[in-house]
């Protein structure tokens, strides 16, 4: 009898287990289908693929297009745009693009993004169009060159975003209102960022506003916020324009450190830190930290967006120099 009850109990246990399993499977299937349909809906709403040269440009594009476009960046966080060598995967990426975006002003060494877009027959938007570039006089160069690191002034970031807006609206006029609304919101965030940076920088005595970094990427930042800048590597890290550390440029940077009584100098996330570390020990100053320069931070880091990158840089600079 007991055995019989036991068996019956076992059977009913099995059947309730099976029911539970079925219910669980049903829930999983429903959730799965819902997620799949949400993803599909988001993908169906997409009107194009934007392929961008750098992480900064990709972030600006993302702020304008939202989920309406798929946004891809050729460079990954931490890569150097001056020395980048294109790969077959980049060629494929650009082939699938609706629109391509570059920084311009020869940030992309040997114009690799221009060449990629031209080879694939894709329209290329240069985000620095209409920006008044800072001219740099490089040692050994007959004519001054245009500094490509224009995004470091938030007022220039506005021009990047407006160039992107124009191109996106031309490609997809049906969603003009939506793109303009996102852009306006983002411009408000740039305005707040600018006011915040001014507030932070104003707390730093004027004589301490000297920024020594690996390469000359911070001229726009320095001009906007009243800093002096010095860098041993010149405006590009690549040898294509005769850049790179020369004994003369290194000596000049060390002289600047001593002349201005600089407390700290900075390494950059996309440039080999060794030169700066050696210079710091030679000049008897400390390395103040790492700045995001030609590339933003990896996903999950504070520097994964332009706003975050600028905020982190300013905090690092102020803490090291005050």
């Amino acid at each position, binding site marked *: 009898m007991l055995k019989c009850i036991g068996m019956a109990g076992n059977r009913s246990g099995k059947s309730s287990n099976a029911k539970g399993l079925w219910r669980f499977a049903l829930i999983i299937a429903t959730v799965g289908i819902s997620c799949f349909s949400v993803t599909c809906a988001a993908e169906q709403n997409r009107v194009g693929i934007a392929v961008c040269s750098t992480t900064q440009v990709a972030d600006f594009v993302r702020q304008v297009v939202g989920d309406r476009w798929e946004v891809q960046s050729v460079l990954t966080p931490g890569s150097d745009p001056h020395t980048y060598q294109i790969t077959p995967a980049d060629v494929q990426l650009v082939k699938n693009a609706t629109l391509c975006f570059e920084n311009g002003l020869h940030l992309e060494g040997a114009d690799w993004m221009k060449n990629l877009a031209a080879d694939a027959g894709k329209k290329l938007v240069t985000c620095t169009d209409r920006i008044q570039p800072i001219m740099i006089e490089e040692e050994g160069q007959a004519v001054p060159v245009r500094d490509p690191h224009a995004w470091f002034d938030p007022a220039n970031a506005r021009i990047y975003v407006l160039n992107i807006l124009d191109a996106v609206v031309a490609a997809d006029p049906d969603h003009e209102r939506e793109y*303009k609304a996102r852009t306006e919101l983002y*411009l408000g965030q740039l305005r707040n960022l600018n006011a915040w*940076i001014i*507030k932070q920088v104003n707390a730093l005595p004027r004589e301490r506003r000297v920024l020594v970094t690996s390469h000359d990427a911070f001229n726009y930042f320095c001009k906007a916020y009243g800093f002096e800048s010095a860098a041993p590597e010149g405006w590009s890290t690549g040898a294509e324009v005769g850049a790179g550390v020369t004994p003369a440029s290194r000596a000049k940077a060390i002289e600047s450190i001593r002349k201005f009584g600089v407390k700290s100098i900075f390494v950059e996330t996309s440039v080999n830190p060794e030169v700066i570390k050696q210079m710091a020990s030679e000049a008897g100053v400390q390395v103040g930290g790492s700045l995001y320069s030609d590339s933003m931070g990896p996903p999950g880091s504070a520097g994964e967006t332009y706003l975050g990158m600028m905020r982190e840089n300013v905090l690092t600079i102020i803490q090291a120099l005050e």
Partner: protein
Amino acid sequence: MRPLLSFIMVVAILGGVQLYMTHRPRVVAYQAEPDAVAEGEFRLEVTLSFAAGPDPFALELEDAPSLLVLFRGQPVLHRTNAIPGGQVIVSDPVDGIVQGQNEFFVQATCANDASLTANAIRVRILRDAVVIAEQTFWSEPGEAIQGALNVTVPPESSAEATVQE
């Protein structure tokens, strides 16, 4: 018993509502008295301590005001060009100033290179060439100046106006 009790309660509630609706005091539309226009010639003067320029973060720079003064929702001054510091910008005459409370909304944006410092803007209201109200507005560095000048204008031209800070 219970259905009867429920029925009585429903009747009581509905009856109460009906009674209130029929006997509530009537809402009479408030007839605003038109404000009496203040006598005299009014003039607005604005002086900036800094160079003003269109908002460097505006979506459309052409429409972005460098200086804007609104009175009763209408622009009394609206400039989109660069304005050098120290220049007095005038609106003369200013029409529609009434006896009693008048509010002027003032907004000015700094040209980019002037935005590292705190800036000020001086606003004066003159009645028959006599200053009746003046106020200075300050901005934090990097931010636009925004403020409201609240001035109470007396009926007689000779009496002094008051400004609510």
